[in-house]
């Protein structure tokens, strides 16, 4: 589904990704771990099409297309979703309007008709219930004044509504209480299917206790320096990243 080959990216001439390779197949869950500043969020942003990053080499294919050729909204319409590490506040933009416009844009791309107001309300209430989000937050401005955990829940609500084919969750589990962590995990597990794939960027083994990954990768210095199964995450939990850096250099 997603093939990343020798991806090289820089910001303001500063190299940030230095030959990143990754292959994600349908139905798979990949965890990406790695030290602060190693390039995890940058990688996620480049996949989503955020401007400000210059791709200096390599390629990214999503299904049979050149992902890097598509606009941000085209990527989303083709089924790519990024839950942001720091969800953006949109003062004055009602969360309901935001969710409805998003859902209808994605539905239109799938050739489905827009939902009428009543059906949409039913769907959104339902999904908000699933992620334990208070209906009050639906009426407020998008993320404005939301607590950190509420913002993350809102990201999971969008994930549940938009049902993407490839979801990238950038530290959606950071800063969450135990219950909210369960919500994130359930959000992923409910959607897990043979047609769908996930990339979970995380610092903690905890999330992976609830969402069992098929692969675990370590991103360091802008490259994937080690890949393994879920036992790699356990080992990282015990030993930190130092030993990998040592081995990679060797």
């Amino acid at each position, binding site marked *: 589904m997603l093939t990343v080959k020798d991806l090289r990216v820089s910001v303001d001439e500063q190299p940030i990704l230095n030959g990143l390779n990754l292959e994600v197949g349908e139905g798979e869950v990949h965890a990406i771990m790695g030290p602060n500043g190693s390039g995890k969020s940058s990688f996620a942003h480049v996949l*989503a099409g955020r401007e400000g990053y210059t791709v200096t080499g390599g390629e990214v294919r999503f299904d049979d297309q050149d992902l890097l050729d598509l606009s941000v909204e085209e990527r989303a319409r083709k089924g790519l979703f*990024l839950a942001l590490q720091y969800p953006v506040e949109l003062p004055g933009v009602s969360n309901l309007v935001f969710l409805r*416009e998003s859902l209808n*844009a994605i539905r239109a791309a799938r050739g489905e008709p827009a939902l009428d107001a009543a059906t949409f309300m039913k769907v959104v209430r339902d999904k908000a219930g699933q992620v334990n989000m208070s209906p009050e937050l639906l009426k407020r401005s998008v993320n404005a004044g939301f607590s950190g955990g509420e913002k993350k829940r809102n990201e999971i609500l969008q994930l549940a509504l938009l049902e993407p084919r490839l979801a990238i969750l950038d530290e959606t589990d950071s800063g969450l209480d135990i219950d909210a962590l369960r919500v994130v995990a359930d959000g992923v597990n409910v959607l897990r299917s043979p047609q769908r794939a996930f990339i979970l960027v995380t610092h903690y083994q905890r999330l992976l206790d609830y969402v069992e990954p098929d692969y675990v990768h370590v991103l360091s210095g802008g490259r994937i320096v080690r890949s393994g199964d879920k036992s790699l995450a356990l080992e990282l939990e015990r030993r930190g990243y130092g030993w990998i850096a040592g081995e990679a250099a060797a």
Partner: protein
Amino acid sequence: MNAMLEPVERYRRLIDAVAPSLPGDDAGWLTSQRARATEHFVRQGFPTRKDEAWRYTSLERVLEQVWAPNAEPGLQPATADIAAFHLAKDAVARLVFINGRCLPGLSSLSGLPAGVQLGSLHSALEQQPERLAPWLGQAAQAGVSSFTALNTALIDDGAWVHIAVGTKLAGPVELLYLTTGPGTVAAHPRNLVVLEDGAEATVVEHYASLDDTACFTNSLTEVLLGAGAQLEHARLQDESAAARHISNVFVQQGHSSHYRAVGVSVGGLWSRSEYHNRMQQTQASCEIDGLYIAGDAQLTDVHLDIGHAVPACTSRERFKGILLGRGRAVFDGRIRVEVDAQKTDAQLANDNLMLSRDAEVDTKPQLEIFADDVKCSHGTTVGQLEPEQLFYLRSRGIGADDARRMLCLGFATEVLQACSVDGFRARVETRLQQRLAAGAVMGNSGE
């Protein structure tokens, strides 16, 4: 300066010519008020760009034409034509003015509760001028500008609203001011809104055009609030692209009174709105929110003059501007806290969203504080749409143009939500959407 003398002389002659036909000319107080205003106007002349408050505005174009006040409309609009302009569905009364003159046939005043007097100022001045004597000209006398003096010299028609002690209106009073040709048209509406102690009301002023005749509106609204009175005052300037518009609002507030205003300026070639608030008794509060939208060829100008003269009053002013194309805006907000006005709480904000590189804004907040125990702040911003916000919306599948539209509406919503009249908010949102959709005003995503 000399170039300005001629229009003053022209207006002086106009005043002399219409004076005999103005209502209430047998009331000595009114005749002398008009005479004083005329004298003041002639002495002072029109402002020039040398006057600080008019630095950015050249009046030459407005003044080179002769604008006939109260011109007969070429076509009398029908009630059905007027309906499209109604904003408040639950209005308890409507007054409709065409070219400055109240048309009773288009107005509806039935079913008002006891304690409410509402109608044409012209009729009130003809029938019982002494009834208005305690109020008319009271709020608008302090430091009168040329346009205020001119309006007073020509006091003829407008809305007269009086709400008795403790009376609360169940719905808004809607005042609609339309202009229509043929020829160049001037209107100098004069409104007087008096809320006695404890009275509560919502008043909507809506200025619009029936066609794209060049018109000049010089409106003046006086608001007098008794102790504990509460007024919500929504104003929309939505005139044609050929219109020149100046409006002055003078508010005098009694003890614990509350004045809440939302002022929106969308139309017009040149539009200037001024708010002059005087909190004269303790514990009074005012909240003024405003939105201005200016595109190609438009200049919109906002002047606030908020006076705290006594202790423990609160004021909040928040204006937002959306600038498109070659639009220009001026925001000049002044809060003056006098020596005795301890415990004043005053906040002023002005935020501008520039949707084009060719747009221009001059923003100038001024706090003049002469008391020492006060809480005052001001802040202004001039910025573009945030790239992270656009990215966030687009990353959810929303197209770039729709994303910009949503963010602009969101920006405006923060002001509009201060207004309780649904139809008012909806009309402004529609206008904003139309303006955003019209042409390549938003630039492209790469900007």
